[in-house]
């Protein structure tokens, strides 16, 4: 019987090594906060963190960055007044800024076996300096490469033992594409459903992208 549920957060995060590339979804919501706390406790260091933003002064991303164990942050923006902003300004963290759509597409490319792609996004900007470009159909394009993770930490609303997931409203955001882009995809889910409890036509992230699931019931939020 396939059963991707593990007993607890330490079991879910076992084996994440120093130097790992960590994919962390979230955009106002949809961040797996308990898994981030677990990663902080787990102690892996020299990490590369891939997230939409560098977060603020508090919250999961800021808490992880504040440990000093993130060597490099790859994201679409960093607030000057944030843990990330100050770490970068102080030269204590590398930063790679990627346009948000390119970030999502590079993650998808990693999950979909696309080896590189051309996009007009970012061409003719500072982000294109020293990069390979090409004019296609009259449009200047940047060559972009896949962005794969060693581990993805995923937030779900519902999960079954095959790892099929749903996500709530806009909390879906980066979760499905990050789930497909990592060697090890670890999920925290609010609810556990029996196999088949998610209608097959309404699965948001198929279990084939998921390796471990931990039930984090948390506080019920309405609605």
């Amino acid at each position, binding site marked *: 019987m396939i059963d991707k549920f593990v007993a607890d957060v330490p079991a879910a995060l076992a084996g994440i090594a120093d130097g790992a590339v960590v994919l962390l979804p979230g*955009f*106002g*919501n*949809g961040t797996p906060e308990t898994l981030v706390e677990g990663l902080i406790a787990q102690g892996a260091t020299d990490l590369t963190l891939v997230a*939409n*933003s560098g977060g603020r002064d508090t919250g999961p991303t800021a808490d992880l960055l504040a440990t000093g164990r993130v060597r490099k942050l790859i994201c*679409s*923006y*960093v*607030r*000057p007044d944030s843990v990330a*902003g100050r770490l*970068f*300004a102080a030269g204590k963290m590398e*930063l790679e*800024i*990627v*346009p*948000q*759509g*390119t970030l*999502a*597409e590079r*993650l*998808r490319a990693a999950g979909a076996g696309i080896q590189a792609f051309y*996009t*007009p*996004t*970012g*061409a*003719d*900007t*500072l*982000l294109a300096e020293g990069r390979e470009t090409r004019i296609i159909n009259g449009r*200047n394009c940047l060559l972009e490469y896949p962005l794969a993770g060693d581990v993805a930490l995923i937030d779900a609303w519902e999960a079954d033992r095959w790892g099929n997931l749903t996500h*709530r*409203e*806009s*909390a*879906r*955001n*980066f*979760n*499905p*594409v990050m789930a497909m882009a990592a060697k090890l995809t670890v999920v925290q889910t609010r609810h556990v459903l029996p196999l088949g409890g998610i209608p097959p036509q309404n699965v*948001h992230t198929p279990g084939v992208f998921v390796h471990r699931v931990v039930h984090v019931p948390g506080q019920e*939020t309405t*609605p």
Partner: protein
Amino acid sequence: MSFRPLDRAGIAARIARDIPEGWFVNLGIGIPTGVSDHVPLDREVIFHSENGVIGAGPAPAPDQVNPYLVNAGTQHITLRTGGAFVHHADSFAIARGGHLDLCVLGAFEVSETGDLANWARAPDEPVKQVGGAMDLAIGAKRLWVAMEHITKGSGGSRLRRVCSYPLTAKGVVKRVYTDLAVLDVTPEGFRVIDMVPGMTPALLQEKTEAKLHWA
């Protein structure tokens, strides 16, 4: 001769007037966010938010907040009946694939060739806030900019022959709405299509670094 500049809500309302029913629209942070407040709900305009929201609606009543539903500014919103949720790559497929009838962004500067500068004030600015602007700028069928005509601090014109700030995208802006005027970006440069009451061509040109053209 006196004129009254539009306030930020006034610019947003002016933009809203020009959005017809049925358009699919993304609104950037800043002045553009306010545009949707000026589109009556019975004029069906579908608002897109980068985080996978199609059909973003007004802010909820305080006791009706859904913590799982925010817009690209991470403000709590509602979803209009008929809306849908997609993931981030699908959301940007929409933005980059030419499916937005319109995107309205704020800007530091726009050039007369339609270059957009809205993400950094200097090449060596230590912190970079790109977000989704570069994707939206290249992908939407129409890119409009909402901004004040004049920079608050220096008093310099934001409508430039050439942008002095780092570019977000090149040759993408189709129209600019400022507190003083509405200007199309045409092959010959900025063409004024509307001005606030009391404004004159001469005065508007005085406040604009780029050369203005008239319909």
